[in-house]
């Protein structure tokens, strides 16, 4: 047995110990690789999709790489920590620090090589499925065919070869052999119980309270200014929450003997308080990483909903065509539109309406003013709420919801008659971009001669009927969508385009969010499994005193619940506040979207918890028998 054989055997015969580290490394490689498959896809790289998407993909890919670096580093160091005793033993047999470093380096190269290979193979297997999903989300015309991603493979191999070599070098130089006795005693050494101060524990409430209040009270663009300070305050607050407040609460509970000495509470709490020092850092890390992923995914999803909702809301028709009085080509345009509609066999009822403009404030500017019956005719056609006006009341119609209450309602005179909107309504029925006043019919009749008028043609019908996208594309290519004298809109096609570009961002965001979230789960897994041996030993000796299986399950169950859900619940709270702030900023309700995103994350965490709990309890129980 040469030294190299020894290092190889050490890995090959001890697969279970290395499995967690190997799997998380492989997972990282797989994520990077699948992303690279996308980024280098001929369809995307060929410039068929816009530059933003391509740039975003490329940036995201390297962000994942940087994150992978830290993730592998973390996995690695927690993996090495569990092997202290083995290292001590080897040094007792006369292994020099240089040889120890060499061994760790060799092991890492073996694992790194296998992980890279495994990640690429797994990535290839899933590539087709992921390409399909990507095609759907990205709304790409044509299909993202499977291709043999030579370039992605090369880039992944090279990137991760460098990564593993760097980390191996880095780790083995950090691997201070320390005192041999500390290594050999390893986890047997008594850890001191962490202390907590009441002041710092109370500071948690102050910090998080302040952060939450500030962000919940923020209106409009205030949120942007507050983003950095609030993030810092809440981060510090969360750190103290896990390092101080949690310890303080546990200590308080422990000092209550009526509670602490009650059945299995003693087992659970005494362990918790000693592990809290190690746990706190993991909890903080997991909490922040999950919060970032919630916020990223939540805000992207929310934003996408807002945008598509706006486009759809602002124009309820199949096609709308606004023609200025200066438009000389009107009849030709109409003919073309009708022809294309017929060609694609679209069902749509055409209506027309005149939109009138009046000089305001002695010719200072012009303003669209229509009568309430004109409005209601269009609203009825597009199945939007009708407007009921009280006598003398005026309503302003704004097509966009975003700045609804920021718009000042001007008081003005049109042709000498005072027109002052009493309220604002968001509606896209009129298809124009400007604010339009709707006045009662009798006032409208008194307004007199309009300064100008536009002809509005709308085709009302089902926006989701087949052929509408093709028709939209044809209309936009045959006719200019927007000129000085006319404007043609096919909302369904616009929404589709918007979805395409937001889809790309959403896709990247989702990807990164999921990577973050899954790695947060892995952090927890590592934390739990580094305590496995200790737990086995502990329950082995307690079982001799008489611990029933249900009691064991209960203790372990609570322990794992705390580990898995303490950081996630805090992260969910942070995420909920952040998404509420976002909703306030855009003045839309994102309640449903936030609930969906946070709910899905919670569900994934729950499944993850159930799986890990099953195996952990099984392992500990096997030690008892």
């Amino acid at each position, binding site marked *: *047995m*040469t030294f190299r054989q*020894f290092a190889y055997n050490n890995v090959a015969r001890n697969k279970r110990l290395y499995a967690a580290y190997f799997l998380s490394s492989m997972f990282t490689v797989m994520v990077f690789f699948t992303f690279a498959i996308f980024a280098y896809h001929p369809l995307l790289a060929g410039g068929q999709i816009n530059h933003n998407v391509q740039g975003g993909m490329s940036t995201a890919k390297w962000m994942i790489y940087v994150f992978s670096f830290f993730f592998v580093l973390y996995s690695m160091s927690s993996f090495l920590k569990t092997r202290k005793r083995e290292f001590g033993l080897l*040094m*007792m*047999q*006369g292994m*020099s620090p240089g*040889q120890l470093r060499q061994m760790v380096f060799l092991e890492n190269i073996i694992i790194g090589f296998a992980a890279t290979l495994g990640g690429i193979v797994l990535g290839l297997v899933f590539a087709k499925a992921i390409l399909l999903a990507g095609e759907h989300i990205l709304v790409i015309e044509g299909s993202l065919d499977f291709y043999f991603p030579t370039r992605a493979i090369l880039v992944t191999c090279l990137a991760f070869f460098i990564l593993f070599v760097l980390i191996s070098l880095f780790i083995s130089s950090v691997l201070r052999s320390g*005192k041999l006795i500390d290594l050999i005693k390893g986890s047997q050494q008594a850890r001191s119980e962490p202390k907590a101060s009441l002041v710092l524990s109370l500071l948690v409430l102050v910090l998080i309270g302040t952060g939450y209040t500030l962000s919940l009270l923020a209106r409009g663009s205030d949120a942007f200014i507050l983003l950095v300070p609030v993030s810092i305050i809440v981060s510090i607050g969360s750190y103290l929450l896990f390092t101080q407040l949690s310890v303080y609460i546990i200590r308080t509970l422990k000092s209550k003997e009526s509670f602490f000495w009650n059945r299995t509470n003693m087992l659970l709490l005494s362990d918790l308080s000693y592990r809290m020092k190690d746990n706190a850092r993991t909890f903080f890390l997991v909490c922040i990483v999950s919060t970032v992923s919630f916020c990223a995914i939540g805000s992207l999803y929310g934003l996408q909903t807002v945008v598509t909702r706006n486009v759809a809301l602002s124009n309820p028709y199949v096609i709308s065509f606004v023609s200025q009085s200066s438009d000389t080509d009107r009849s030709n345009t109409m003919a073309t539109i009708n022809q294309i509609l017929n060609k694609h066999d679209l069902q749509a009822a055409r209506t027309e309406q005149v939109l009138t403009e009046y000089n305001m404030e002695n010719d200072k500017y012009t303003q669209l003013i229509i009568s309430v019956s004109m409005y209601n005719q269009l609203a009825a056609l597009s199945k939007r709420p009708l407007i009921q006006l009280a006598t003398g009341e005026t309503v302003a119609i704004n097509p966009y919801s975003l700045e609804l209450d920021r718009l000042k309602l001007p008081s003005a005179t049109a042709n000498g008659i005072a027109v002052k909107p009493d309220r604002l309504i968001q509606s896209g029925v009129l298809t124009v971009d400007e604010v339009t006043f709707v006045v009662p019919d009798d006032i409208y009749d008194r307004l007199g001669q309009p300064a100008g008028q536009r002809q509005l043609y709308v085709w009302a019908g089902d926006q989701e009927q087949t052929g509408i996208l093709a028709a939209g594309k044809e209309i936009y290519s045959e006719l200019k969508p927007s000129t000085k004298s006319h404007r043609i809109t096919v909302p369904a096609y616009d929404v589709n385009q918007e979805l395409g570009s937001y889809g790309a961002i959403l896709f990247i965001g989702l990807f990164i969010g999921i990577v973050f979230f899954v790695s947060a789960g892995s952090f927890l897994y590592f934390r739990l499994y580094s305590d496995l041996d200790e737990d086995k030993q502990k329950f082995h000796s307690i079982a001799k005193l008489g611990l029933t299986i249900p009691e064991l399950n209960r203790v372990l169950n609570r322990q794992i619940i705390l580990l898995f859900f303490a950081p996630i619940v805090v992260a969910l709270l942070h995420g909920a506040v952040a998404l509420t702030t976002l909703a306030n900023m855009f003045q839309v309700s994102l309640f449903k979207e936030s609930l969906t995103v946070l709910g899905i994350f919670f569900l994934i965490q729950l499944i993850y918890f159930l799986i890990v709990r099953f195996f952990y309890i099984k392992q500990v129980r096997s030690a008892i028998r």
Partner: protein
Amino acid sequence: MLNVNQISKIYEGKIAYKALSDIHFTIEDGEFVGIMGPSGSGKTTLLNLIATIDEPTSGQILINGQNINQMKKNELARFRRRELGFIFQDFNLLHTLTVQENIVLPLTLDGSKVSEMKQKAAAIAEKLGITSIMDKRTYEISGGQAQRTAIARAMIHSPKMLLADEPTGNLDSKSARDVMEMLENINREQQTTMMLVTHDPVAASYCSRVIFIRDGQLYSEIHRGDNRQAFFQKIIDTLSLLGGHSNDISSIRL
């Protein structure tokens, strides 16, 4: 061979605890010395200091005239794998390796030739009667076999000094006797200096000299004459003087 010179060990902490104070003794070449004492007397601490696992707070330890406390890390590593051998109560075999691989580990680390390693391993296995289990993994063998494997590992590089911490602590009486007889044989045939920390008067009775320590200080020492049975009785007597009754001291440390 071994010269322990006025060593003290203080464990720092909230309450500093003096585990050893002014221990002073020497062990000659080829001697087989047992260290005994009640729980908490500092036996294992002493062994750890000599084994270069831990460092004394004051004093020096010379092995073969070399001050082990002044060695650099790499020197120490080389020293451990060439001059020292260890046997532990819980064997401390690497479960990723087979019995044979465990045995040759010190030579592997030293970069010896494979053929040489094979030959040495076969020879020592023959002597210890573990030839038949050479290709088994550590979880497939019994405690006695595991301890014999550990002895083989400790002996394969023909160390000048063999250190053992409760080598019989986890073994049944038959295996314990086998192990002690093996150690005695090795000591006699190869003139290897041995130092053994134990609770077990039977194990200690195989030594040529037993040093007793109590509360971190040397208490007394007794020499073995020709009769092992009489020596055993002397050990029991000293132990009962040391603290309470002879049956206070169990043969298995818990």
